[in-house]
């Protein structure tokens, strides 16, 4: 409903009051700043108001074109900033976002009775017109007036029903207790609110209340920064990491493992930036070694790569939520993965060190057996390798090795990045019985998988293959070190798995010790 749509009503002709709001950037939101490039359209809205949602949805797609013509649009919410951002994003608002909280000083200063209210401020900082509620015709007139001032033709919202719709009461215009009640989430479905805020990977989450996050931190300083999470470069304070752990469903005793995984992926050598935005499917595999596995109930046995165990699933999920939420790498947004894989929900395996014939991964990487360590590896989805019939370690090693022949791509030889083998206990037992060391198995596998270059020249292949003579033997891996061997899984069944690499990223494997709470 248009209450003052004539372009001069209300505060028309008066200087626009300075804005007491929070913006999304570090710089304050000012009338001078908003009108620096021309004029400004202040759109006062409230998250609870359907007419505000209509206005944001109809005007949102136009903001970028307006900005290019010199009209800066800002949605000013009567809600907390994080809720404002989520709501604006959900509704397709592409202009700026600002927020004010009780007692809603900006709404008061502009004399608001209704949201949405659109206020046009000219380049001279004077209010040029106001439209309250949704009134398509009045808004078109306001935009025409703005366009005349800018010498531009500004797009108006589409001629779609409803052409008019009454707004809702501004929270500044009603009793403060009632306004607080309108802002309260009590009575609403908390789990649905998490989806509304965008604090999810697509599955229900545990709301990160202050109490839960405090418990997750366990006395650690929530303000401590672990660094910036790419690609959006949100700061991974321990409080935000803990919020992700709560959202994921972690118990507080898992948190040191989550924090170690976060530290590991933020090491520049891991190149999370590349992994987070790539069209590749790669997820971030978390391998846990050391005493912490038993202390927090990580599963190393049956179904080691699958469902059923809270610690494995929620630790992996917490790390992925950190990447998606704090880091901004939500699939379809900055995460551009063509297909992705289910390991991008959660991807945490604990090694069966006790059942392994070999030194565990963290010892290979220079840690003491008694240390608890998290190792992160950019990895593709697992490919299961059935072998129930090999009767020699050579045959079994050959079968395991050749399963990776098509890792990354059929004729992409050699691979410089790591292929991760999860060897099941029955397969490991055959190597134990034969006295094979880990290095012997790795070397055998490395040497087993090779082909004449002429057989690798079809379709996508590598410069190495192109440059090699037709009968020159090309290996699948650039070095034996590109084969990572773990032991995990149920005691019965001869199924191992290989996880292909994330390639072309220069990503390295990174390990971090799990810090104890008593530091």
């Amino acid at each position: 409903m248009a209450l003052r749509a004539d372009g001069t009503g209300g505060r028309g002709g008066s200087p626009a009051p300075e804005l007491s709001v929070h913006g999304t950037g570090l710089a304050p939101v000012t009338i001078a700043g908003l009108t620096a490039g021309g004029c400004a359209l202040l759109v006062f809205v409230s998250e609870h108001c359907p007419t505000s949602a209509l206005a944001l949805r109809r005007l949102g797609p136009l903001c970028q074109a307006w900005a290019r013509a010199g009209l800066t649009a800002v949605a000013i919410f009567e809600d907390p900033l994080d809720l404002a951002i989520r709501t604006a994003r959900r509704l397709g608002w592409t202009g700026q976002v600002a927020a004010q909280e009780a007692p809603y000083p900006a709404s008061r200063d502009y004399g608001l009775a209704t949201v949405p209210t659109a206020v046009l401020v000219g380049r001279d900082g004077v209010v040029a017109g106001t439209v309250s509620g949704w009134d398509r015709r009045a808004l078109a007139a306001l935009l025409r007036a703005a366009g005349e001032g800018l010498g531009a033709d500004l797009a108006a919202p589409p001629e779609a029903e409803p052409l008019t719709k009454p707004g809702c009461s501004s929270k500044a215009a009603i009793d403060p207790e009632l306004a607080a009640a309108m802002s309260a989430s009590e009575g609403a479905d908390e789990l649905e609110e998490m989806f509304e805020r965008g604090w999810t990977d697509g599955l229900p989450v545990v709301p990160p209340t202050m109490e839960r996050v405090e418990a997750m931190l366990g006395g650690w300083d929530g303000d401590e920064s672990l660094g910036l999470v790419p690609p959006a470069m949100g700061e991974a304070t321990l409080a935000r990491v803990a919020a992700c752990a709560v959202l994921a469903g972690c118990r507080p005793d898992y948190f040191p493992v989550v924090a170690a995984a976060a530290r590991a992926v933020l090491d520049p050598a891991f190149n999370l930036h590349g992994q987070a935005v790539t069209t590749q499917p790669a997820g971030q595999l978390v391998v846990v070694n050391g005493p912490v596995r038993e202390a927090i109930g990580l599963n190393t046995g049956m179904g080691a790569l699958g469902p059923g165990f809270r610690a494995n699933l929620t630790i992996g999920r917490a790390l992925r939520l950190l990447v998606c939420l704090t880091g901004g790498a939500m699939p379809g947004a900055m995460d551009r993965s063509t297909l992705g894989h289910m390991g991008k929900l959660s991807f945490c395996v604990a090694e069966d060190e006790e059942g392994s014939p070999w030194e565990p991964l963290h010892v290979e990487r220079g840690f003491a057996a008694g240390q608890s360590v998290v190792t992160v590896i950019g990895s593709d989805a697992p490919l299961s390798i059935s072998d129930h019939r090999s009767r020699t370690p050579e045959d079994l090693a050959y079968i395991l090795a050749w399963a990776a022949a098509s890792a990354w791509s059929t004729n992409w030889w050699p691979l410089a990045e790591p292929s991760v083998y999860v060897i099941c206990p029955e397969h490991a037992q055959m190597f134990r019985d034969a006295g094979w060391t880990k290095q012997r198995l790795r070397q055998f596998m490395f040497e087993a998988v090779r082909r004449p270059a002429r057989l690798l020249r079809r379709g996508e292949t590598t410069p190495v293959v192109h440059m090699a003579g037709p009968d020159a033997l090309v290996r699948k891996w650039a070095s034996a070190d590109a084969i990572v061997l773990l032991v995990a899984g149920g005691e019965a069944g001869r199924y191992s798995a290989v996880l292909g690499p994330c390639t072309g990223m220069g990503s390295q494997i990174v390990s971090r010790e799990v810090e104890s709470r008593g530091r």
Partner: protein
Amino acid sequence: MAADYVSPFDERVRAAEPLAPRPASVAGSRVVLLDIRKNRGAEFLDRVETLLTSAGAATTRVTKEIFSKPAALSLIDEIASGGGLVVEALAD
């Protein structure tokens, strides 16, 4: 009152910036051609460079260290001081 949550988001993260205005013509412009080292990106830029040159633009070629990591600040400075326009060969 609303429940007090700890947000996993860093609200200081900046929203996407609007695109810069597009020039009506490239004649007389200096154009930086950024090869990010994606497969065949250089071939694409070769063709673009030919077209730009024939349209009267002057070109400069720069290269990222690796496509999967952000450009070094020194390279960004070099691009910013190299001309008014940039063409990036993004992906194969």
